[in-house]
Structure formats: structure tokens, C-alpha cells
């Protein structure tokens, strides 16, 4: 009897799950950020207009990354939330395979980089070193970005001050 392996080499999200997630992010952004009434019937047309052919998985992946970033604009009272929650990507998260694309979408937003800097400052002001270690998913992300020659504007001095797990 052939048994399914408990993991898949393709860790990207399944199409159905992607669509479910994009819908939740899309309706969340409209409801909480734009403060408009969601028209569910507009969903497919909106995604098609912004991202293209709905039959392609790549369309939904682009929409997922974009709306994940946009969703992080919601209720951003404290920018450090981006560090220990939104972009604290760990392998158990289903958006982990998309972490770099989501983060790059965030950095493309006005004030995206500024918010990361503010978040890091708060992290070092209001949290103990023990608490900061919980943000190691973000610190890994930054290291990977730096290794790829990106993120020149993020103060690595701050990031480097946190010991790796």
C-alpha cells in the first residue's frame, strides 16, 4: 500500500485555500481599512482587474501576497506588531513560502520601510531581550533579504543585536 508522505515538496498553498485566504484578506481590507461595505459579488472582478487571469494559480498567489501586505495596514497603532506578528514568518505558517514576496509588497507601500524602522525601535524600547527572541522569524527574514542584497535601509545594527536561536 502506497502511503502519502506527511509533507509535500511543493509547500505552496493549494488553489482552493489561496482563494479562501485572498477573500478573507480582501474583505478584511475593505471592511477595516477602507471602511466600506463589502460587495461579495465584486470579488472575482476586482481580483481579475488587478491581477489577471483567475484560472492561473500565479494570479491568486500575487493577490495573496499583495493583500497580505495591505491587510497589515489595518489598525496599525503599534508598528512593532509587524515585527512580532505580521512578518514574523515561521515554517509552521501557511504563508511561509510567500514570506519574501509579502514583505517586498509591504516595502513597496508608502511608509512601509519607515514603519519597519519604527517597529524595530519600539521592539528595543518596550520589550525584554527574552521577548524579542520570539520575533526570530522576522530576524531570519531580514537576514535572508540582506543575503540577497536587499533591505539597505533597515538598521541591521538593531537586528544584529539579537542573538540567533
Amino acid at each position: 500500500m502506497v502511503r502519502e508522505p506527511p509533507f509535500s515538496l511543493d509547500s505552496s498553498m493549494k488553489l482552493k485555500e489561496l482563494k479562501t485566504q485572498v477573500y478573507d484578506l480582501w474583505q478584511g481590507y475593505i471592511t477595516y481599512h477602507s471602511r466600506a461595505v463589502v460587495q461579495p459579488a465584486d470579488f472575482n472582478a476586482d481580483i481579475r482587474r488587478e491581477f489577471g487571469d483567475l484560472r492561473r494559480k500565479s494570479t491568486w498567489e500575487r493577490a495573496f501576497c499583495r493583500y497580505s501586505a495591505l491587510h497589515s495596514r489595518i489598525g496599525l497603532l503599534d508598528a512593532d506588531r509587524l515585527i512580532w506578528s505580521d512578518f514574523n514568518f515561521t515554517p509552521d505558517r501557511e504563508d511561509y513560502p510567500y514570506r519574501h514576496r509579502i514583505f517586498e509588497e509591504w516595502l513597496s507601500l508608502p511608509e512601509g520601510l519607515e514603519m519597519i524602522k519604527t517597529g524595530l525601535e519600539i521592539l528595543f524600547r518596550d520589550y525584554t531581550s527574552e521577548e524579542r527572541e520570539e520575533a526570530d522569524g522576522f530576524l531570519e527574514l531580514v537576514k535572508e533579504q540582506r543575503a540577497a542584497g536587499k533591505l539597505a535601509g533597515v538598521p541591521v545594527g538593531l537586528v544584529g543585536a539579537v542573538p540567533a536561536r
Partner: protein
Amino acid sequence: MDLLGQSQPVRGRVDGVTVRKDFTQTIKAKGGSNRAYGRATARMTEELFGCTTDELYEHTGARAGDRSTLPQDAQTAYVVGEVAATHRLKNTEIAGNQQQRDEQVVDTVQESSREVKGLFPWNW
């Protein structure tokens, strides 16, 4: 409630940072996802101030994303809102799939915020 029995002793004096951490940790403990924090904060802000967090920062001239730069009255209102929401969340059963739990967290925070908004003179 039994104050001594239910509340953990702390070594330091409770301040706004402590209150905020208690609030976010309670959302997490109740099974709220990463999306629940922002949504709950958006609802609390709308109830307490009648605007979004972006608008609050813009109108007060504070530094976006850093609440310690907001006017003192705004900061204390958030402390009250978060204390109220934390107690309400702890005493509310949150269940269902992820989206349902997130909705219940957000609704609970909104209800408790609605109850305390009348304490603040700008809402009179």
C-alpha cells in the same frame, strides 16, 4: 472575582506597555490569528475616537506607528479600552474555525470598547 486568586503578582509597576501586552497575549490565548490584532484595534479605535488609526496619527500630528507619541488623553483611552477588552475576552468563549474565532475576538473587543467610550469627554 477573586482579585488575589486570579491576578498574577508582578514585580514591576503596571503601565501602558504591560496593559497592551496583556491585551495582545489574551487575543493569542483565545485563538485569534495575526489578522485579529489589527482588526480588533481598528474597531476599538473607531469606537473610542470615531476614526481610523491612520487618521488619529494624522490629526494629532503624532509619529505613525508609535502610540507613545499620541496625546496623553488618547493613550490613556487606549489603556482603558485594552483593560476592558482583555477582561471581556477572558470571560468570553471563543470557538469555531479560524475566521469565526477572529470574528468573535473582534466583536468582543468592539462591544467592550462601546461600553467604555462614554467615559471620554470627546464622546459626550
